[in-house]
């Protein structure tokens, strides 16, 4: 039995590999072997890269070697993209070269009923104390090491999210969205067949990875339920985890022998088990991303009170519509707070309620009013909804996020280029910025949920001082 500590140490060395052989590297950009080496080069990997291809002297401009055994000196990690039947031999050669692990992209193992071949692969790895990622995976991307060992996509925007998924296309969505918006990721990992390393191992690694603030998982099932829950509980005591589980509507195949049995759809139990152990369970891809972003960028809310401040009435109404379904309340402004805001110089047409409709497009007005309001503790999170481009909005938002006692999030909607640039500018400053008020409320709801989970279990006691 390998312990968690040993596995974590092995993953530490794998993700921080200084030399990497790409076995099956190809000059053909349409082949997985060509795409993977290309991603590593474009990702900016700074360690030594060894293409392995018996039929080429050079691959993508790098000197190629006929086999792993022919490599000059040792190698930390191998990326394997050769037909399945050749993989065990590649693993043995890599083991002899001192490799810690192998990223086995190749398919054709247990997912195709080839259980014996997968067992042989595993036996070869064990013989040399190597660890296997995959087989049958898109790959891994660890940005602190600029190691995009994946056949796509190349994500270089480093940020707080580690993304662990059981699907290639989900990996692409959950890594490209944060990259496009300027939030970024720390890592992406595909699970594949999990012949050796599995969901709990990666979860445990990222729990202890300083570069990761939030872990995002897309799961279709788990291999070892009890171990997963124990790892999840330890992880969520350290940092937030967001889980999206496929198969929400598939009702468990149970007979109706009893009420309990017939009602226990596996999704419901899965979601409850994750929540019980501190993970925020999202219902779809977009919510997964919104929750992860809010958990990464919003300071932990003290409670569930939301104040919505808008340039236009519609935004506030939309935010209000969603607040309750995400566990948020929108208390009315106190008379003292309303008076305080008038004194501070609210725009003459402003409607001082919650949602608060500013009827102004002056960034200066927003800053003055919101700072004045904050002194009256009107809410635990203040959401600023910008329905139109706001001159100087990014600067004001950044200042507010630093100075407010309440948590602070922004929705910057309407689809124009100006708004998009504004969102990215704010996102780069670490603000929680969303494309619509609804999505902002959803994200805030997740942050409130997690803060509540921690509070009720006393997880933050002793850290405050």
């Amino acid at each position, binding site marked *: 039995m390998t312990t968690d500590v040993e596995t974590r140490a092995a993953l530490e060395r794998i993700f921080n590999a200084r030399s990497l052989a790409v076995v099956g590297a190809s000059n053909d950009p349409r082949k997985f072997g060509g795409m993977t080496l290309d991603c590593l080069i474009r990702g900016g990997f700074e360690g030594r890269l060894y293409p392995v291809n018996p039929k080429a002297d050079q691959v993508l401009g790098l000197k190629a070697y006929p086999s792993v055994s022919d490599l000059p000196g040792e190698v930390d990690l191998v990326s394997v993209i050769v037909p399945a039947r050749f993989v065990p031999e590649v693993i043995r050669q890599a083991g002899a070269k001192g490799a810690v692990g192998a990223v086995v992209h190749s398919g054709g193992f247990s997912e195709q009923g080839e259980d014996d071949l997968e067992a042989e692969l595993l036996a070869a790895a064990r013989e040399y104390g190597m660890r296997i990622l995959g087989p049958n995976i898109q790959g891994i991307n660890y940005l602190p090491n600029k190691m995009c060992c994946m056949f796509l996509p190349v994500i270089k925007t480093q940020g707080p999210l580690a993304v662990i998924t059981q699907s290639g296309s989900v990996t692409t969505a959950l890594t490209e969205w944060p990259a496009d918006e300027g939030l970024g990721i720390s890592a992406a990992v595909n699970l594949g067949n999990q012949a050796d390393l599995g969901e709990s191992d990666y979860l445990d690694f990222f729990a202890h990875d300083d570069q990761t603030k939030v872990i995002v998982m897309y799961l279709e*099932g*788990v291999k070892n*339920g*009890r171990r997963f*829950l124990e790892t999840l509980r330890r992880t969520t005591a350290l940092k937030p985890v967001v889980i999206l589980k496929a198969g929400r509507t598939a009702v468990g195949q*149970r*007979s109706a*022998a*009893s*009420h*309990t*049995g017939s*009602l*226990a759809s*596996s999704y*419901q*139990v*899965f979601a*409850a*088990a994750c929540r*019980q152990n501190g993970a925020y369970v999202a219902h779809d891809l977009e919510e997964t991303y919104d929750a992860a972003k809010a958990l990464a960028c919003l300071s932990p809310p003290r409670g569930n009170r939301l104040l919505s401040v808008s340039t236009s009435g519609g935004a506030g109404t939309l935010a209000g519509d969603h607040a309750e379904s995400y566990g948020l309340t929108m208390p009315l402004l106190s008379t003292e707070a309303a008076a305080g805001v008038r004194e501070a110089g609210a725009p003459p047409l402003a409607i001082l309620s919650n949602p608060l409709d500013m009827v102004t497009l002056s960034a200066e007005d927003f800053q003055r009013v919101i700072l004045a309001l904050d002194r009256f503790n009107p809410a635990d999170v203040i959401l600023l909804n910008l329905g139109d481009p706001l001159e100087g909005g990014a600067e004001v938002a950044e200042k507010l996020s630093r100075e407010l006692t309440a948590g602070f999030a922004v929705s910057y909607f309407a689809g124009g280029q100006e708004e998009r640039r504004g969102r990215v500018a704010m996102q780069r400053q670490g603000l929680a910025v969303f494309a619509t008020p609804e999505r902002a409320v959803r994200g805030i709801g997740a942050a409130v949920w997690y803060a509540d989970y921690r509070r*009720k*279990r006393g997880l933050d006691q002793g850290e405050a001082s």
Partner: protein
Amino acid sequence: MSNESGRFLTEPEAIELLAGSGVPYPEHALAVSAGEAAAAAGRLGFPVVLKIVSPAVVHKSDLGGVALDLAGERAVAEAHGRIMDSLRAKLPEAVIHGVLVCRQAPAGVEVIVGATRDPVFGPTVMCGLGGVFTEILKDVSFRVAPLARIDAEEMIQELRGYPVLTGARGGPPADLKALARLLVAVGDLVHRRPEIVELDLNPVRVYPNGLLALDARVRVNERAGGVSG
């Protein structure tokens, strides 16, 4: 769960198993004749409920094996006769251990508490409100055993019908501390005893002070550990 073997405990066996875990049950006695049933009812106090006890009977009311609201010894003796006749007509081969005489519990908010073994996570506990809430609206919540007190509280609070428990219908609020204690106790039981593959307390009546489980169905498989907890 029909693919898993095992057997249902009779109600007295189930009660004995649960009593050790702090699951409150109405006062009861096993009787093997009409005379014994009437005498037991006299001791327990009226009204009483009679329930058939037979390893062959899982759904007692479907087979005419239950009689409610019995207010006197004569009513008990007559009900005993009806139950025996019904059983002999419908399941002539069934071994009958007797009838369970239970003191009839007062009205209260009805909930259902259950436990199953999830193929992935092992023992899980379920809670729901009785009647349409559970059967039509599927308003139930789950947790993996063992449960911390906070888990039990949250699984009660997340029911859509939660306001019914806090007195939304004008009644007094139900004893939610007692319900949380019950959920924790059931979780501990199924966590500790891997041979319990399924457990149903349906209904459980929750009162302003305390609660009572009115029926218990427990399936055990002595050879199985299920997914270990």
